[in-house]
């Protein structure tokens, strides 16, 4: 069965997006990409560090061999001006209109700045970018981002790199229910494959993971685990889960049961 993820009209055959940061080596990153088969991989722009020239090039040379679609980010930008400038430079370097827009409002928990985010998204959409904003689970913020022209939203599960999993499940689920037509990708804060599975079961369209894979003891195995969990969650959602009930209901038929009538349940202490 074909189950395509559509982002800004572009079709993707998988629903996991993979970050490329914090791997022990570029080769390990490539192996993790092969294991996860991500729809896109996130990348950033940085100054060339003194002495880090080789490492930087090695990263790029190796990443290019994977032929994966790129999703440049504006990580670390704290103002609209910085985010816009970084976005334009990213388009120059990576030659794509796709952009993971980050405008950070707090340097402790790396929480998105909702006001700066809407302002930057409004301008970037006008400039032809396909903006995927990294946002919170606030419904009104999400609506404003849609008004700005964003066609995809990326609400957080928890602060970046914490691995906590969905910190506010009710808000995330409500967001899903209120914006049924909008592609929603849960970005940031996932730590376990079960977290990915969980949000996919809730009907989210995809997940973006980085630290949970790259800092695992075996990143390649974890990449596989996340890919499988994402698929399992998606299938579970599509299959239509049963409603949760308070009372037990025997799954094995009562009719034809042997010893019917021969015994009765007697609670202990009442015999």
């Amino acid at each position: 069965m074909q189950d395509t993820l559509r982002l800004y009209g572009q079709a993707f055959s998988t629903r996991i997006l993979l970050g490329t940061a914090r791997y022990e080596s570029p080769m390990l990153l490539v192996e993790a990409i092969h294991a996860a088969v991500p729809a896109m991989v996130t990348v950033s722009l940085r100054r060339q560090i003194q002495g880090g020239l080789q490492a930087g090039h090695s990263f790029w040379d190796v990443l290019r061999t994977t032929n994966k679609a790129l999703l440049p980010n504006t990580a670390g930008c704290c103002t609209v001006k910085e985010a816009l400038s970084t976005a334009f430079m990213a388009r120059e370097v990576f030659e794509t209109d796709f952009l993971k827009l980050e405008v950070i409002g707090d340097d402790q928990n790396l929480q998105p700045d909702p006001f700066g985010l809407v302002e930057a998204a409004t301008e970037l959409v006008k400039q032809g970018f396909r903006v995927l904003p990294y946002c919170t689970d606030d419904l009104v913020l999400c609506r404003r981002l849609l008004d700005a022209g964003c066609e995809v939203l990326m609400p957080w599960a928890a602060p970046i790199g914490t691995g906590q999993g969905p910190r506010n499940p009710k808000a995330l689920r409500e967001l899903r229910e209120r914006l049924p037509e909008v592609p929603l990708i849960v970005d940031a804060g996932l730590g376990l494959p079960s977290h990915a599975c969980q949000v996919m079961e809730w009907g989210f369209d995809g997940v973006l993971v980085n630290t949970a894979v790259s800092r695992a003891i075996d990143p390649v195995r974890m990449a596989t685990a996340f890919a499988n969990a994402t698929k399992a969650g998606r299938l579970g959602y599509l299959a239509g889960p049963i409603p949760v009930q308070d009372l037990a209901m025997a799954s094995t038929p009562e009719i034809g049961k042997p010893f019917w009538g021969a015994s009765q349940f007697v609670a202990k202490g009442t015999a």
Partner: protein
Amino acid sequence: MSLTVNGQEAQLPDPPKLETLLAILHLRQPYAVSRNEEVVRRSEYQQCSLMDGDRIEIVHPSAGG
């Protein structure tokens, strides 16, 4: 003439052109440049004259989440 390139002071001989600066730095492709927080497109490098005190950023692909 004095510039700030990636946060560090740098000198550039006259005439101060962006193209000259990029040539001196022996950069490997790909990279992108901003001048005073405004992107300079590749097609504009040749025409771009620099002014004293300009802040230049040069960035390369890097790992990101």
